[in-house]
């Protein structure tokens, strides 16, 4: 056949290249890392009853920086790693106008209380028995932590164990803003 025809046959191997490039791109992404659509939107209101009986609601905390942490007693090792960091963050900032609430999801009361006892959390923790709050915040795994500003908007979401540095960084940023 003619020469022009000769060149077009190389289209066959070339056609494979875009697919390979796409697959290679896949290495840079993490399928479990899903951006939250809630960032910048008003945080969903919630009313919870803490393990010690106190009533907690988002409305009552308007004006403060709210850190909402979702955890479970079976979430090993991440929740166990971040628990001390949360307590430290609470101790450092509780007098500076933040509220830290731990929400226990997909769990039973006994193991949850055992978890709390192990770490001696002094900030309020509440169970979310029907999962309403976790779905309201688009939670798809534990642990997840949301940082809500004084105006009640979700500003940051952190998936995975939180560290002192991240806690401090986000809280400081939000504290610096006026209500």
């Amino acid at each position, binding site marked *: 056949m003619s020469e022009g025809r000769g060149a077009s046959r190389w289209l066959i191997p070339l056609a494979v290249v875009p697919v390979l490039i796409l697959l290679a791109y896949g290495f840079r992404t993490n399928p479990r890392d899903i951006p939250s659509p809630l960032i910048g939107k008003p945080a969903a209101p919630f009313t919870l009853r803490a393990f010690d009986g106190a009533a907690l609601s988002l409305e009552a905390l308007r004006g403060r920086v709210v850190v909402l942490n979702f955890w479970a007693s079976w979430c090993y090792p991440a929740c166990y790693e971040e628990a001390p960091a949360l307590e430290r963050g609470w101790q450092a900032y509780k007098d500076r106008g933040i509220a830290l609430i731990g929400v226990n999801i997909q769990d039973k009361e006994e193991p949850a209380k055992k978890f709390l006892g192990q770490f001696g959390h002094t900030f309020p923790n509440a169970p979310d028995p029907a*999962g309403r709050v976790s779905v*309201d915040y688009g939670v798809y*795994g534990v642990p997840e932590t949301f940082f809500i500003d004084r105006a009640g908007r979700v500003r940051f979401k952190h998936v995975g164990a939180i560290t002192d540095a991240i806690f401090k960084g986000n809280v400081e940023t939000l504290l610096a803003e006026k209500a």
Partner: protein
Amino acid sequence: MSAAHASRALVLAGLACLLALSAKAATVDENTVREIAAELRCVVCQSLSVADSPSETAHQMREIVRERLAAGDTPEQVKAYFVEKYGLWILLSPPRQGFNLLVWVLPFAALGAGIVLVGVLVRRWSRRPRAAAPGPSPVDEATRARISREIAEMDR
């Protein structure tokens, strides 16, 4: 009927209406719940739908669907709620708009293109001029008939 009777009857009738209304609001078609749940992705189990997944999260999500339907939301609104909270990936198949149309359209386009291609090729190949027919063979009629019968038998 005396006034007392009438007013009691009215109250009873009113109560009955209320009961009927609340019962209606509370019964949700389980099929609708399943249909909606089948289009939502279970967030903890990868490829399963909320309808299929045995996990606790999925159970809770089904409850939320049920609750919302009972409160009067349409199926579209229920799905929109989940999309608002989780993003588009909560839907088990992408909505048919924008870039996502590509995944819906391309397979059918490929199928169509394939059929057309085969059609063109088959046409072209069956129109090739065939070699000149061979001259009359020295085989006699009876043998030829037997041969074509056996070939027909083999070809099946």
